[in-house]
């Protein structure tokens, strides 16, 4: 490894940090613009003017915005995400188990989806334009085309209600035996796998096909290598960058985009947590979750960028 490459990577990371700060400002400003009164949202129809006034005073919503921003930022940097307005609970400690749950589900889906997508993609390239390619393409097309909640409900209908092999609801909790936990997330993980599979598969196929048109592949073919070896040894390594990119995009989706699946399977993850608190205008929670989501996205993007740099000699040695 040479010096310029370290510099490039450092640049990416620095850029990511700057971006994260910008996002924190955007999130803060955005949540300040939200109209509606927190106290009214908490108490709902049962609000008496007295209780409303008491609550408003107690929550101390009267400081100027920029002071609250820096106070919040200071807290975030020291690991203190503040307390939820609605429940008075420490946000960091209530988010942590949910983040774990979200990552667990995303992990389960990713462990299945990523290798499967790449293998299917390789197969499609190997047998391109043949029946296997067509079947894989059709399957991928169909699975992207159904709304994800529909896939979720169909899985529930068949596997939980009709055949009763997996639970319909995926409640997981601390101290749950690992196998039981795994069983609980089978259905949501399957639904997520179906949602992200096609995109990664198509990208793998397209990226490799792109490389297959290069001259050195032709050389390899002329050398008489077996088609699968060509793909594995010569084409795939050169197609890594776009594949990693799309894999990272989908991993990000698995972490931050699963609100709908969480609602259907009653999975205690971050999305459900966020939706509950958006409805109640619990600003600190919305800020905290928004920031975590943004951080996940940015970190995965940095990883993808770095992988692209490492994989690409032209980027490794910029002119």
């Amino acid at each position, binding site marked *: 490894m040479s010096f310029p490459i370290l510099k490039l990577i450092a640049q990416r990371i620095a850029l990511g940090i700057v971006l994260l700060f910008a996002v924190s400002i955007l999130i803060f400003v955005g949540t300040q613009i939200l109209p509606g009164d927190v106290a009214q949202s908490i108490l709902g129809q049962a609000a008496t003017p007295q209780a409303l006034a008491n609550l408003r005073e107690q929550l101390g919503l009267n400081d100027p915005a920029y002071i609250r921003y820096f106070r919040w930022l200071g807290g975030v940097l020291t690991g203190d995400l503040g307390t939820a307005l609605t429940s008075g609970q420490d946000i960091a400690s209530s988010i942590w188990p949910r983040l774990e749950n979200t990552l667990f589900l995303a992990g389960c889906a990713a462990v299945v989806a990523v290798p499967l997508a790449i293998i299917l993609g390789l197969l499609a390239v190997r047998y391109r334009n043949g029946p296997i390619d067509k079947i894989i393409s059709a399957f991928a097309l169909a699975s992207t085309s159904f709304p994800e909640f529909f896939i979720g409900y169909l899985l529930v209908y068949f596997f939980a209600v009709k055949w009763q092999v997996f639970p319909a609801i995926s409640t997981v909790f601390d101290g749950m035996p690992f196998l039981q936990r795994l069983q609980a997330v089978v259905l949501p993980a399957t639904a997520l796998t179906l949602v992200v599979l096609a995109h990664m598969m198509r990208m793998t196929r397209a990226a490799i096909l792109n490389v297959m048109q290069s001259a050195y592949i032709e050389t390899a073919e002329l050398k008489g290598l077996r088609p699968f070896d060509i793909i594995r040894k010569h084409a795939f390594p050169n197609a890594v960058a776009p594949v990693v990119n799309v894999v990272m995009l989908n991993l990000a989706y698995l972490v931050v985009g699963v609100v709908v699946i969480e609602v259907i399977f009653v999975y205690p993850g971050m999305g459900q947590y966020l939706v509950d608190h958006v409805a109640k205008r619990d600003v600190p929670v919305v800020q905290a979750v928004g920031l975590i989501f943004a951080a996940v*996205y940015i970190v995965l993007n940095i990883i993808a960028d770095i992988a692209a740099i490492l994989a690409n000699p032209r980027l490794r040695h910029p002119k």
Partner: protein
Amino acid sequence: MLDLKRIPLGAWLGLVLTGLFLICAIFAPWIAPHGNGEIVGDVWEPMSAAHLLGTDNLGRDLLSRMIYGARITILIAVLATALSFSLGAILGFTAAAVGGWFDTLVSRFVDLLMSIPTLIFGLVVLSVLPTNTLTLILVMGILDSTRVYRLSRAVAVDINVMDFVEAAKLRGEGMRWIIFREILPNALSPLVAELGVRFIFAVLFLSALSFLGLGVQPPDSDWGGMVKENKDGIVFGIPAALIPAAAIAVLAISVNLVADWVLNRTTDLKGGRGNG
């Protein structure tokens, strides 16, 4: 430029089905046997001669609702996609052609927007703004334009360094000329391929929003919203929930078939189901 005989079967299927959906959407009031909100029978009646697809959760004719639903679904998705493409492509091309601080500024801002998950962004914005069709289109279009921006900028950057663009610049052509006469025609095919994919993601995004209760306002309803209205019936196998979902899938597949066909004529790798 098109040889009809060389269009593959899949693309034909896609073209025909897409056309059919479009006809339903455009001529909805003349095709639909009943009114959109009209209650004509009991709740969740099975399919019959009177109601070809049965009735929905309030006893409305499902076929009529589907036809009106096509209109709303397609209208919103088309307008949102059109918005995202005009906005994203023009900004992307301009950024590539102008370069410098403008490029940096817009690109970083787009990065910023993209780092917040689309659905979450939409959720927060739509739960605050008055939900009507216009806000829906604007929110969906603007959020999606970030992805189009990335693609069109990437494509345009490549084209911008081509000799013929250099030549045009040396000729002293203006920025407008460069963007619309030099870059646009050469970036068209990847963009068209992307258009189909984006359109489908718009339909799916709309249905996800409807599912979360932030989509179209009843008695109007998009297909995703209709699945939501009837979703209690899914675990009992009631067709009223399955048909709209199937319609979304068929629309998605047929547009994708057309897009694939275009895609096969070009090569393109960008895009995705949002960043989540």
